[in-house]
Every structure is written in C-alpha cells, then in structure tokens.
C-alpha cells in the first residue's frame, strides 16, 4: 500500500484538493491566449508558466477539458520514426514522458510495453529496416527482427505461413509505451492552473481580430479577449481555426476510428501494429484491448463511427490473433485527424506575426504532447523557433522541404 493513499483511508472526509479551480469570468486581456484545451494547449500553458514565468495565460476550448482528440486517441507513445528530424523530435517527447508523472505530481500511468510494427511484404521489411537503421544511428532502441524473435517476445501472435499475409519480420521498439491519455491532459491542467493559468472550457472561438498583420484579440462565445499573442492547438479543427486567422493550411481532416473490447485478463503485453493490415492493438491496465487502424477513406468533419471500420479492423485482427473470435467489442468511437501531405505536424510561425500554430497532428499527436508543449512554450517566450521545431514549419510545403514520415506514421500508432 503506497504511503500516499493512507491519508485517504485514515481521514474521515475526502481531502479536497480540486485539481482545477472553479470557473471564473474571462478577463478582458491576457498576455497569451491558447486556443484549444487539449493535451498540447495545456502542456504549452504549463511550460510557459513553469519554465518561462509567463502566467497571464488563458486556455480556451469550445468543449470540455481535453475532450477532443486527447480524449479519443489510443495513447501509444514511441519514437521509431523515419526521418532524423522526426526521430529527434519524438525522442525528446519520450524522454519527457518518462519523468512526466514526477514532473506533474500526477501519475499518468506511463507503461513501457514494447512496440512491434509487423512487416508482411518485402516493401514493409525495407521500410522497417530503414527506420531501424535511422533509429539506431540516432541512439533510439529499435531493431528489425524476424519471426523466431517475434515468437519469443510475443508468443500469441500467429506466425503461420498459412494466412493471407504471413509475418515476415517486425520493427521492434522496446521503449514503445502507453499511458493514460486523459491523465496527461489533467496533469498539465492541474499543474498549469496552480501556477495561475486560466482554463475556460465551453468557450468557443468565433473570430480572431487582426491589425497590421498582428493578432489583437480573440473573439469567443463569451466575449472578446485581447491578447499579446495567441497560439492555436486544435487538432481536428486546425483548418477551421486557421481560417478565422486568415490563412490556409495544407491539411485534410479525416475521421480516425478506434474501438475497445470488454475487459480480459492480461495476455498481451506488447503494442502490435501492422501497416499492411492497417491495424494496431494493445491491452490497457484495465484489461481492455484498444484497437484501431488507419484513417477513413475520405475526408469528413464527423465523429460518427461506422460498421465497415470494425469489420475491416477485426477481420484483420483475427489474422494476427485467431483466438480472439469470441472476444467482444464493447465500444467504438471516432476522432478527427488533421492529415498533412508528409505525415508530419506543422508547428511554429504563421503569416501573422504574433500567432503561432500547433497543428497537422494527424494520427500522431498524443505521443508528441510534452515536447510540443515545451517547445511551443519556448517559441512563445523567446520569439525564436527552436531548432527541433524548425523542420516542421508551415513554409516547408512551399519550399519543397517536407519531412516525409508516411512510412512511419500512416498506421504507425
């Protein structure tokens, strides 16, 4: 029994420590307005307050706290990307994640499980080797392994050749992890508000006021707030909010679906991904199997889920784990993925001088929460784009300097 829980058991009344303050009225002005109270926006607010002493910060969200893609993602964390720029960025995120519970004084249930990206074709094997080589060169623990080793590490996988897509190998990434996604956002929100940051939920941004190429105020359903500068972190709505700010993004928004099983006694320790079969699976600490695939085939602003998705997903799942036929899906849901042409995010400066963007998070946003928050805060505080963010600038598309991560991110949860 951890010591920390004794106070709950031994006190007669539940010790009240509100994690977030009660809502207040919006002030007329803030130094920084962050649009979007998801993991990224809250993390940026936290790092601004904790590391840059900027606390006159307001985080605004149209829904409830962290109720967008932070609430809907499948909580996989890894850094085995393809480009050196990508690997460096996500590896910093992993490093921050490892100590995040202590940093925030809030257990995010970070759990290293090992991550397999299965290869069923020659082409997938090649991509796996490419990623492994880049990863290793960058100091990331990652290796191309073959069926004997796969069987040893994950014995329940079906390695038979008598299937439609036999497993030829896998990219194995031991640091691959899962965490309690909501807890990450709550932890940041709690730590940020303790330092004076305000969070205003159920407050939708409906306009962005601009003068001489600078943002002056953000108009919300609860009034206009003036701001020294603003940042948007609204995965799933990036294009719509950027439009309010008067610029366009090379983003297509596509539904991304997932589902979860009834709880089962633990049997699957690792995270297993198959790019060729477009599926991934892991088992949560509650015993549920969390499963998903690639984005829907067409762009749409709708979080309604479909039957076709489940049929395709589970048909393929039974190829990998034929013994799951009698296991049940308990719930399915969808989120909105802002897909970029190169499968990398867009972060940094915008056509407006004092308006910063954090977008293009497609299917890979959760795992970048800490690094993105920390580095966006640095950008806001110093006005200088950190080197680690520079490759992900918006102008890269016009400059033909894309950061191609398709091979590592299309179903690479």
């Amino acid at each position, binding site marked *: 029994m951890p010591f920390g829980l004794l106070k709950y058991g031994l006190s007669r009344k539940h010790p009240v420590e509100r994690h977030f303050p009660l809502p207040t009225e919006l002030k007329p002005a803030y130094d920084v307005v962050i649009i979007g109270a998801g993991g990224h926006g809250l993390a940026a607010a936290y790092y601004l307050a904790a590391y840059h002493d900027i606390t006159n910060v307001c985080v605004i969200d149209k829904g409830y706290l962290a109720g967008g893609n932070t609430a809907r993602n499948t909580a996989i964390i890894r850094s085995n990307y393809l480009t050196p720029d990508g690997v460096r960025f996500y590896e910093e995120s992993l490093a921050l994640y490892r100590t995040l519970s202590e940093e925030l004084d809030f257990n995010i249930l970070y759990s290293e499980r090992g991550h397999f990206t299965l290869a069923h074709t020659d082409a997938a094997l*090649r991509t796996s*080797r490419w990623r492994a080589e880049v990863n290793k060169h960058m100091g990331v623990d990652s290796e191309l392994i073959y069926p004997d080793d796969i069987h040893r590490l994950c014995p329940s996988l079906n390695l038979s050749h008598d299937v439609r897509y036999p497993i030829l190998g896998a990219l194995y990434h031991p640091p691959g992890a899962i965490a309690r996604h909501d*807890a990450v956002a709550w932890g940041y929100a*709690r730590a940020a508000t303790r330092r004076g940051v305000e969070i205003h939920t159920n407050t939708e941004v409906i306009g962005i006021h601009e003068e001489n190429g600078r943002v002056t105020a953000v108009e919300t359903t609860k009034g206009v707030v003036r701001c020294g500068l603003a940042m948007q972190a609204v995965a799933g709505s990036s294009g719509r909010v950027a439009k309010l700010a008067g610029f366009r993004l090379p983003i297509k928004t596509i539904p991304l679906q997932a589902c979860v099983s*009834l709880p089962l006694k633990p049997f699957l320790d690792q995270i297993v991904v198959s790019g060729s079969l477009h599926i991934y699976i892991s088992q949560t600490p509650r*015993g549920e199997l969390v499963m998903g695939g690639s984005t829907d085939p067409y762009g749409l602003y709708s979080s309604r889920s479909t039957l076709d998705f489940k049929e395709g997903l589970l*048909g393929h799942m039974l190829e990998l784990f034929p013994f799951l*036929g009698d296991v049940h899906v308990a719930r399915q849901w969808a989120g909105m993925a802002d897909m970029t042409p190169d499968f990398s995010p867009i972060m940094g400066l915008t056509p407006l001088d004092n308006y910063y963007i954090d977008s293009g998070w497609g299917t890979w946003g959760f795992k970048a929460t800490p690094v993105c928050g920390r580095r966006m805060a640095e950008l806001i505080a110093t006005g200088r784009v950190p080197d680690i963010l520079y490759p992900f600038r918006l102008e890269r*598309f016009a400059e033909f300097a894309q950061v191609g991560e398709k091979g590592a991110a299309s179903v690479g949860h």
Partner: protein
Amino acid sequence: MIADNRLPEPYGRLIDRRRPIDFTFERRAYRGLAGDTIASALGANGEWLLSRSFKYRRPRGVLTMAGQDGNTLVQIGSEPNVLADLRPIAEGLAAEGQNYDGFLNQDRGRVVERLARFMPVGFYYKAFFKPKGAWKFWEPIIRNRAGLGKVDVHAHHGYFDKQYLFADVAVIGGGPAGMSAALQAASSGAEIVLIDDMPELGGSLGYARFESQGVRGAAVASRLRRRLAGHKNVTVLSNCTCTGLYGDNWLAAVAGQRLYKIRAKSVVVATGSLEQPAVFRHNDLPGIMMGSAAQRLIHLYGVKPGRKAVVLTANADGYGVALDLDDAGVEVEAVVDMREAPVATIMTRSVANRRIRVLAGHTISEAIENRHGEHLAAVLVNRIVGEGRYERGATIVGCDLVCMSVGYTPAGQLLHHAGARFAYDEATHMFQPAELPAGVLASGSVNGAYDLDAVLAEGIRAGWLAARDAGMPVTGSEPVASYDSGARDLTHPWPIFPHKKGKDFIDFDEDLQVKDLVNAIADGYDDIELLKRYSTVGMGPSQGRHSGVAAVRVLAKETGRPVSALGVTTQRPPYRPVKFGHLGGRGFEPVRYTAMHHRHIELGGRMMLAGLWLRPAYYGVPADRDKAILEEVLAVRRNVGLIDVSTLGGLDVRGPDAAELLNRLYTFAYAKQPVGRSRYVLMTDQSGVITDDGVACRFHDQHFYVTATTGGVDAVYRHMLFWNAQWRLDVDVANVTAAYAGVNLAGPKSRAVLSRLCSDVDLSAEAFPYMGVRQGTVAGIPARLLRVGFVGELGYEIHVPASQGEALWDAIMAVGALEDIRPFGVEAQRVLRLEKGHIIIGQDTDGLTHPLEAGMGWAIAKNKPFFIGGRSIEIQGSKALTRKLVGFIVDDKSAPVPDECHLVIHRGEIVGRVTSAVRSPTLDATVGLAYVAPAQATPDTQFEIKVAGGRMIRGRVISPPFYDPDNKRQAM
C-alpha cells in the same frame, strides 16, 4: 444448496418441461430445461451467485435477466464474458464464474474490499509513482488484477458469417410498440424486418403485469403475434440483437454466429426502457434485482426468484411485482414505497387486499449479507425524511430477495448511434428523445410511452410514419397518440440513499459508490464527460445503462445545477458487446492468381506476395534459393528465360484525346509518339513526387496500351478516371490488368524461340526494333508484342487474353525447350534490372522523391504546357538538390553486400541510404543504387555505407547501367 425453485405451469412460457438439459457451473452438475438461460437454470437450482465484481471482487448475481448488466458475465470454455442471463443452456455446457482467486463462493481476492477506503476515486493518479521507480513495482501488480474473462491463446477460430438484408422498414424491438408499428407499416405493403433479441415476440407483454389480474399482457401479445403471422411481408428475426444503427439506416444485427447487415429506408426503434436500480448500502448483493428481472424469471422461465421478498418501489409497477411474487408463492414481507403518498390504483388496492404490508415514505437503507457473504439475508428499512436522507431507527426485515422498481430510463442507445439528442423531462424525471434524425422513429417506452394503450397507439403512429418515410402509400393522416403516456409517477427523482459506510453502489460494473462520484466532482471533474473519464462511471461492460442517470443526478446535486443542463454522455455502438468473429466474418481476403499460376507451382515456384497477387520469387527449393536465382540470371544473360509479368498493370486508353490525357498525366511527351512505338511513362503527383511508371504503347493514333506497376495500377486507374472527368477529355480508360496475361521472353535466344511461334510479325531487328510494339499472333493466340528492356537483353513482352495465358506459357516452354529455356522469378528479375540500373518505383523512390534527384530529368518533357507535378518539378529544378540517387559499386570484394536501406553516412550525419544492392553474378561485383549527398554524386566519388553491425564500407559512384553500358544487347 440445490433447491428446486421451478414454478408449475403455466409459468415459464419459454421453457420446455419435457426436455431436461444437463450442464455444469463451476464444475458442479445442474439440470435445467430447454429454453433456460444459464442464469435461469441456476436460479431454478437455487444458485444465484454468478460472478465477482471488477474491483472489489464482490459477489454478484442476476440484476436484469435481460442481458443488460455486467453481473452475469461468465466464462464458457475459451469464450470469455458470456451473458449468463441471455445464453441458453446446452447439453454438456460447462460454465464458470470470472474474476476470482480460489473458488467463486470463497474468493481470496475479496480481501481488497477491506482496503477500499485507501482507494479513493482516481487513486492511481494520486499514488504509486513516488519515489522514482515505484511505478515499475506497482504497475505489474495492478495490471495483473485487471480484466474479467480469460482468453485461450490456443482457441480455434470459430465459424462466423454475414448476410445482407434489405427492408423498407426495419423495426427494432418486438414488444407491444414494435409489433404494432410493424403491423401498421406492413399494412402499407412495405417489406418489414422485425428484430427482437428474445426467443418469442412480446417484450414486456410476456412478463409485466398491466392490470391486477395479470392476464392482459399475454392476451395482447398473442393477438399481435397472430396478426403479424398473417403478413407475408414481415420477416421476424428472433434471438437477434440489433447492435448498431449507423449512417443512412445501415443496421448491424447479430444472431447466433451470423452478422446481419441491413439497409432500411426507415427505422422504428422500439427498444423499450431499462429499469433503474436504487442506491443503498450493499445494493449489489445477489438476491437484489430489478422488479422486471423477477417477473422475467417467474413468467418466462418459471423460476421462483426467492422465498421471502421485499419490493422496493416508487411506482405502480412495483405493486404488480408484489402481486406476481405473491401469486408465485414468494412471501412478500413488505412493499417499501419511496413515495410519501402513493397514488391509489387498482394494483395498490389489490396489494392491500392481499394484506401485504406497505411502508410508504420508506426506503431500504442497507442490505445485509448472509453468513457466507454471498447472498442477501435481510434489509434495513428506514423512514425517508428528505432527498436521499432517512431517519435513524431502522426496521430489519429478513428476506432473500429484493425487487427494485423505482424507475426507468429509455433504452435509447440505437437512437444515440443515429445522432438523436435526448433531453431531461422534469415532469417525469426521465430523459426523452428530443430530436430524431430523418428516417428514424422512436416508439413505445423508449419514446416516453409507458401505459399499454399509449404504447400500442404510439406503435401505430410510428409504423404509419415509417411507411410514409419509406415511400410507401399510406392512407389517412398521421395517427395521433392521444392516450396519456403513463410516464408520470414512474421514476423517482432521487432513488439514492448514500450510506456513511459506503458500498452504496451507483455503478456495479466498476464498483463505484456514491462517495466516489462526489469525491471525483470535488476533485474538479464536474463535467459529465470528465466525471465519467475520471471515475470510470459507465465505462464497464454495461456502458452505463444503470449508472448513467444516477451519475447525472449526483453531479446535478453536487454542482447545484439542474439535470436538464447537464445532459448524458454519448452512447456509442455497439448496443451490446459484439464478437470479433461476427465482425470479422469469414475473412474474404482476395488472392489473385495469374493465368499461369498452376504452372509455376508445378515447376517448383516459391510464391511471394505482389500486391494482391502471388508471383514466383524463384523456382526451386528454399535450401538452394541462391543457386536457383543465380542460374535463372545466367539463363537470361546467356540463353533465354521466361517470366510471368501478368500482374503488371495494363490500361487501355482510347479516344481522340488519348495522347492529350497521357501528356497531362505523365512527364514525357506523347502527342507525336509514332504508332508502333512505346515510350516510357513517369507519373508524378502535384508536388512533383514520383508515383508510378511504365510504358505507353501506341497501337493506333487514338489507342495507347499503358502499363503501370503491379501495386500502383489501381491508383493510376482511379487517377486517370478522376482527371479525365475533371478535364472532360474525349477518352475512354479501361483497366485491363486482369484481362491480359503477359510474359517476358528475354535473353539472346528469345527471338529464335519466338520465331517458332509467331509468323505474322516480322521479328527482325530492322522491322521490329527495340521499343517497338506490334500486334500479331503467337502460338495462334492474338497477342500484343512489346520490345522492352527491363532486364537488359533482347526480349519480348507478349500480352494475350488471360484465358490464353496458360496456353501461351505452355507453347513457349515447349518450343523453348530446344533452346534450354528456363523460367525465372521476381528475384532474378531484380538482379537483372539492377545490373541494368533500372529503378523500381517504391523501392528506389520514396514518398518524397522527385524526378530530378532520381536522375530522371531525361524523362521530363521540356516543351509541353502542362503536366501534373510539372510546376513543382520546375521549382525544384531551380533549387539545389538535397540528395541524389546514384549507381555505386563496392570495390572491396570482401565487404558484405549492403542491405536495402542501409544508411549512407557523411561526417556522422545521415545523408542517404542504399535502395537496392546486389552481388551481381554477371559483373562479379556488388553494385547498387543509393541516395547520397549531392556533393558525393559525381562518378568515382567514394562514400560510406553503414552496414549490419555498424560496420562502415565504401561505395564508389559509377553511372548505371552497370551491365552493357552501351545498351547494345537489348537492341539486338
């Protein structure tokens, strides 16, 4: 204790008393009757303990008898989480409880319950991570306690299938509302599918008591069933659960091992309502169940739910339950009515007449477990003095059954799936559908109608509207349901009586007590969605069916807001858990065989995947793989070889604008391409990235036969159709990939072989030169002949109708035998093409490769106004390259052959990678293609490759082709 709780006839409308069935539970033998569920059969034998709860391992038994709760989840062999109150028993069935250590009735794990006070809501966020490293210790302990059922990793994949159905009107729910809706809609001539999850239509008519005599339900049910049987246009799916209502009225329904997928023009949701539990200390003990659950046991299964009962109620239905219990020989100790002054009805009078004690203005404050700790033994009854508060002095009432009838909530999950909005009605204290999407109707108690006459009228109204929405001829005007809905005075606004010692459960699935929710709200999680996520209320197997409304009530009270301002969390599919097997079905994954597939197998071909196709990698046994590939390579270089190229994409582009279409889609120029010639095609996307390649063969001024890569052809075809439509060109595009079989006959002796089979085409080098294309006959088969040079030797691609592919193969192999012809596979072809320096799209290019860095500037037409990607390539041309694809040779003969994707390193930085590399038998050297830094791209520059184990080897840039640099051999 094995007791006989079976009631005599006419109780038990679903069981067949002549057919006993033996089964086991927890390795003990029991006998039930055909038609019994596991839970009812166990109940008949006096066994009520079915499972252990998720967190505290508390004993759990029947709650709803309708497959709506997580209490009855059991394990049957390798099948986890089976609903014991829905699953019929079968001869020899062996079921077990879940989530316990030792024995189900003596769970060692229940010790955790004593630690409950040290585990406040959200406790895992607050602890276990300090000091550093502590989490690594606690995590496996917590993880190992998780879960309910067990999977057997050796279990076999059972048989599941799928069936499509179509309906004008789909009606979900076979109760009075659903049946009358189906009847009404059927009278318009509409095709109806009526889906019901019980063995017999009737819903509540089969067990609920609608008047004091208790005969009306059965009478109405048999009348409706009889009338339905007279309609040939009504298909009834019984024992079938509709699990999802998706976009455009696309329904999923599960019965047995089958998933039905149903498209309906309109849908009537008549799924009824869910009885809600009362909250008091130990309200989860086996023996405490819904009033409707007791009625289902009595009437459907002929099972006496207990011996001595207390009915806890807040409406007239509870009195019906008391009458049913009394009729069935259960001693009703008391009816405890939470209402201060219950409205007098026929039912209340009947109860009074039978001298059953009624305690108005009272509640149960606590249930007491028996000495084994596994069943209800007594309840404490207290006088209510305010919302959720009661007087101290309690009356103890001994009983082994509590029936809860304190209110309902609509079973509106399917309506939620369809996007309906629900609103709280202060008059009835219930949520009601407030906004329904077009083509979806709600009927019966899911729509707020409870009185039977109102329900029947509601059904007629919904059936009429559904028929109209489905476009059927309907007569008259929309029927008006003018009856009183009967929804008032049914649902208590606050059936929640917190106890200072807790164990007053709001969520049985998650073992959540009132204080857990109160504390979660105090922690700041005061939005219903946050409350759900932080406390996990509603996240268990029953998805909040019995906790959702109570949670909202608690949140409203704690935050001082009205329930109507809070809303409920969204219900997402499926309505009831669905097996992976149902969704996966039989797994129809297409595999494409070429016309010559069986010949490859006969020749010992080792097949590999190529998109959806299978192709021979090489011919021979795996042990001799390298030798086989080498011999195949040498056969092509020195003699003649034959490879099946049927999987290559083929597109017939015909029409006056055919050349124009190609001009716009590919980088080269095609307007002036002569008939009878082929030309390389390279496709780029709008950002100038290479996406596909092939050749365009011009057979006529207005006809090109364009090849595409095996994996890319479907996308190329879609792309062509899309742009052809956008540009409104006069072109027809046909994907003829599978219509043609093809071979490449390659090697110095290929002309000699072909000349024996083809007499109507002049095969001489002068008449049919390299890059020429002809149509003629080969072995009597009409054929398209292409002189191409992928492998770098004299060669002919021969494309024939797929039906003739095997005949062509046989004919060539037969005459080729004279020249010692050898079939070769993909692996040999890879070596041959690499010796020639040809790139493979997708291997030597990646998601960002543009033609200039791939050294393919020669394939870009300079003098045409437009092609897709042209502008981007022009911009890239004005910038310095960031990498360059080059040919290289490894001079150190002892160095290992680099693998594809080994990195090119320059001063510690990654500057590129090897895309292809091979030990060339022809050249006796390792050659390959690699991306290098632009400064390294000039011939004879050395660069470093990091190979396996981190070893560095040196490559030297040389210009491809490595083999036959003057291209004389392919032009012979």
